[in-house]
């Protein structure tokens, strides 16, 4: 293979990887926010993403919404689901040992997966094409409109999130709770309200990811959250769990690594590479890429 075509392939894989990675990033953000506040690995988070995809499916097929209203509908629906899950399953366990909450999270995950199977049947559903997949050619490179929409939506959502966390009152409260829960409580911050807001925000982002994936691959099923949920967890750890920019960067890196491994080594090693990264990070830099210098956590 000559250098030119190798470069083209590399760039095409970069495009493939970034669009896959921005979805991992959206899910990883929710993981990392919840961890930052509660020190809880919310294993049900991948299933919130699935829930969001189904909300989007209902909005587009049954209610006839177009893309933007559908994604907002899914985000609001998932945010409410996130608040309810936190209220019912996690809040009573607030002072229980860490392992008990972790097991509860796994239980919630199964409840969502198999509950959805009961309601929606286990058959994969075909997501309607809410906008056409136009294909653009830049020389030998191919990008389609869906990849652009995924990337742009992810960037907009991350920008909104950064604004909320950095510049609003609730964002400041979140940072305070993450930094020191007890001190924040003593300063008169309503901890429960902050935690609810965190769950709402994280769940809404995952739901947006779910709808985008539904449109991109046009197929959703009740177990679709399992693997992306774990991959997003790897992304969150890679960037430094609890750190918001870390989740974004971790997601993109993971997506690009997967695409490069599939493209230049073998698709069989793709998942091995993803989890290999997790092991290496845990061995050599357990705090993640952004773990050392950035102290501020949410």
């Amino acid at each position, binding site marked *: *293979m000559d250098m030119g*075509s190798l470069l*083209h*392939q590399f760039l*095409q*894989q970069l495009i*493939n*990887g970034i669009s*896959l990675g921005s979805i991992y990033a959206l899910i990883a953000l929710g993981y990392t926010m919840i961890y930052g506040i509660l020190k809880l690995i919310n294993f049900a988070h991948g299933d919130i993403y699935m829930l969001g995809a189904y909300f989007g499916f209902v909005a587009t097929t049954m209610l006839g919404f177009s893309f933007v209203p559908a994604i907002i509908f899914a985000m609001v629906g998932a945010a409410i689901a996130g608040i309810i899950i936190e209220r019912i399953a996690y809040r009573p366990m607030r002072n229980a040992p860490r392992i008990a909450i972790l097991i509860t999270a796994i239980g919630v995950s199964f409840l969502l997966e198999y509950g959805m199977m009961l309601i929606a*049947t*286990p*058959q*994969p559903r*075909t997501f309607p*094409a809410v906008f056409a*997949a136009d*294909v653009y*050619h830049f020389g030998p490179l*191919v990008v*389609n409109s869906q990849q652009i929409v995924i990337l742009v939506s992810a960037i907009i959502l991350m920008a909104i999130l950064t604004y909320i966390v950095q510049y609003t009152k609730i964002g400041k409260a979140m940072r305070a709770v993450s930094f020191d829960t007890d001190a924040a409580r003593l300063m008169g911050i309503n901890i429960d309200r902050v935690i609810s807001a965190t769950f709402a925000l994280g769940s809404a982002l995952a739901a947006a990811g779910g709808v985008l*994936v539904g449109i991109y*691959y*046009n*197929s959703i099923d009740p*177990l*679709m959250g399992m*693997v992306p949920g774990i991959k997003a967890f790897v992304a969150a750890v890679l960037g430094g769990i609890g750190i918001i920019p870390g989740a974004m960067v971790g997601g993109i890196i993971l997506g690009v690594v*997967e*695409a*490069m*491994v*599939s*493209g*230049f080594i*073998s*698709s*069989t090693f*793709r*998942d091995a590479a993803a989890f290999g990264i997790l092991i290496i990070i845990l061995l050599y830099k357990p705090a993640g890429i952004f773990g050392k210098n950035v102290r501020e956590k949410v």
Partner: protein
Amino acid sequence: MKRVSKALAALVCASLLTAGLIGCGGEKNADTIKVGANLELTGGSATFGISSKNAIDLAFKELNDKGGINGKKLELVVADNKSEAAEAANAMQKLISQDNVVAVIGPNLSSSVIAASAINNGAKVPDITPMGTNPNITVDPDTGKTRDFNYRTCFIDPFQGTVMATFAKDGLNAGSAAILIDNSSDYAKGLAQFFKENFVKNGGTVTAEESYLQKDTDFKATLTKIKAGNPDFLYVPGYYQEVGMIVKQARELGMRMPIAGGDGWDSAKLPEIAGAASLNNTYFSSLYSPDDASDINKNFVAAYEKAYGSKPDVFAALSYDSALLVAEAIKNAGSAEPAKISEALAKINGFQGVSGTVTFDAQHNPVKSAVILEYVDGKQALKTKINP
């Protein structure tokens, strides 16, 4: 707490007792013959199992309306294997040990049939798979011996792979091909192996051999790699769920070459997932076309359309034939003993089914012809018929 645990114990005892009673009661001297169906009613290949169940129900209803077999009615007991190999083994165990069926139809997926075969062979209950095409279903690969209690109604993988290699070379003038294999499926690996052998033997070159796993959703990286090799033809012998996404994503990447696969493509979901336009210039090998002009097929298509409102797919046709074969074997054996049914199945010769004539060879494989179907604007059309 104490009272609760006592109540719980009583409940457990009661349910055990009931289970025991159901287990031992009422099996002998029944005026029905119980036949099991181990099918993919849910999961990634659910449309296969649902078609099978519809067709078997239809076959049994028609036979029972004519008075049944040997004066007894046929009764179908269905178990769901969720399109998974481990669940297929569980379903087989349940059908044989709890429901006491005399023969089993299904599963359709090769991996599932192979996983379940140890159970029905151990219990000496014959199993006939409508669509399990992997050679190892009827022949144990370790010993090379025929499995006594496994039969199939379809032809085997070598034939599907060989037929597609011939068609790619002669029908589409393809000089080079890339292969994308579902690595979690014995079926896909079998087809790919025989496609490759025959394509290379006929003078073609294979530019890439890549793989994926069931439930993968992103194939763009792998497809980009395949595209770089610039093949004339892409062979994807997987199942419709992933194949739909592969075809869609390949077309999005600007890959316009013919894409082809095996009978795992035969599902109404495929045009939904891939989109009708992306599916143009794709082909698959199959055992059956509803356009086949034989009388028995015309009657079957009419009855199936009347009952279910759609044309039968290949799974329905082969399952219908499987049901008729089991009934024929019970009739020839003059008994509903599983071992005798199995002996009678092995002796079937020149049986006329909707998918052609069935005669089992020494490996319990039928010898029959194949068809190549083409997707034209989301609809299947008969392209050509290839004889063994």
